[in-house]
């Protein structure tokens, strides 16, 4: 049975919590629900950003996703890397 949006969100948060690096590419989330198209996963990830659960992190050339708490641990409140 297909996963609900809430289940996919939970899987994505778990992924962002457990991943070795705090910053993830959108592709890293695809396996959270292999039955969904990549664009649907992208839309769910962006919803999580608008809720403040995830945040965008820019490497300068690539924008990635991260849990705000893990980024703060890594970079401090200033966000300077």
């Amino acid at each position: 049975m297909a996963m609900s949006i809430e289940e996919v969100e939970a899987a994505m948060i778990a992924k962002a919590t457990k991943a070795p690096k705090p910053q993830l590419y959108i592709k890293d989330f695809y396996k959270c629900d292999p039955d969904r198209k990549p664009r649907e996963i992208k839309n769910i990830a962006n919803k999580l950003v608008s809720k403040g659960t995830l945040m965008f992190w820019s490497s300068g050339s690539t924008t990635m996703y991260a849990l705000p708490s893990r980024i703060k641990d890594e970079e401090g409140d200033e966000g300077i890397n």
Partner: protein
Amino acid sequence: MAKHDTPMLDELEKGPWPSFVTDLKRQAETHPDCWDILGQLELSYRDKITHWKHGGIVGVFGYGGGIVGRYSDVPKQFPGVEHFHTVRIAQPSGMYYSSKNLRGLMDLWDKYGSGMTNMHGSTGDMILLGTRTENLEPLFWDLTHDLKQDLGGSGSNLRTPSCCLGESRCEWACYDAQDLCHHLTMHYQDEIHRPAFPYKFKFKFSACANDCVAAIARSDFAVIGTWKDDIQMDQAAVKEYIAGNYPSNAGAHKDGDWGAFDIKKEVIDLCPTECMWMEGDELKIDNSECNRCMHCINVMPRALRPGKEKGATICIGAKAPILDGAQFATMIIPFIKISKESEYEEVIDVIEKIWDWWMEVGKNRERVGETMQRIGLPTFLSVMEVEPIPQHVKEPRSNPYVFWKEEEIPGGWERDVVEFRKKHAA
């Protein structure tokens, strides 16, 4: 009064050419932080290493693009550039600015940033160089509410679409590039402002093959205006060119010492497909061989015009990176109707077919042209549901092996792979 000694940078002010060092010194008179740009750059020249750091938590709320974070790694020495973020502003279609709009943007940047700009970045955005994190939200508010402009794309987003000035001024335009550019910019707002792809993706729209926005060289998805029927020809005007009564190239080269116009040398012999010839005093074109390069039309604009059945060619996969080598786009769809009435549904279908495939199989930080190269054109064409045609082939094959799929052979074939592998290990 200079804040730092910059003997090496000062060398760059010598000579007759314009100098960014002089510009920065002038700017520093009203924006003292600019002295620290010069100071840090001098230090970089001395240390032979950059002192900029990229990235971090930088942006405006809800947007994952448009701001590129940049910090100094020597902030105590150069506090004016401790934060020095880049802001990308979406350019209007065809880059039509009013002077009022430009003054408004410059006032905004004087208020919140260093005042330094880069007009324009290679994607076409107006680049504002150097502001602090705490200035980003107020700047974004004023930009969107007072100037009614938006941030452009950055990171793994759809980059700000750009187009030539198209039908607004150019008689060669084969479709309304500005309208298509604007329509797709609005249609794909989410993809522009939030990361969506394995890597950056650029749209560029040129309304004819003169390709004024260099779409074929610099965009992942190039829509280049073309026509399907025959070049329109006025034989009387051809004769006027030959007689020297009309200037070639609309007079663009009239000040050079090129001698009398020679239709054979300047048009016929330069046709890349050799599809033109003279019969008596009449110019003939084998339109079935013409590849719509537009050279002849550019040279004799009063005699030749694009055909009447207009549309566009779609080329996919160009990139112009510094490190890995530039790549031109590959022609995938020779002709597509560009229809405003259908809200460009045909073009959108092609775009989304590419995205669905690339988002699935593209590696992180791999442009679609690189994915095409890695996977191979035959697979890409089948994904796009495009029948291969001779024009997809760059040169006659040098590889003697031809790989057929079972469904391509009448009657197919039966093959026991297990049995085959007993004798031929994988």
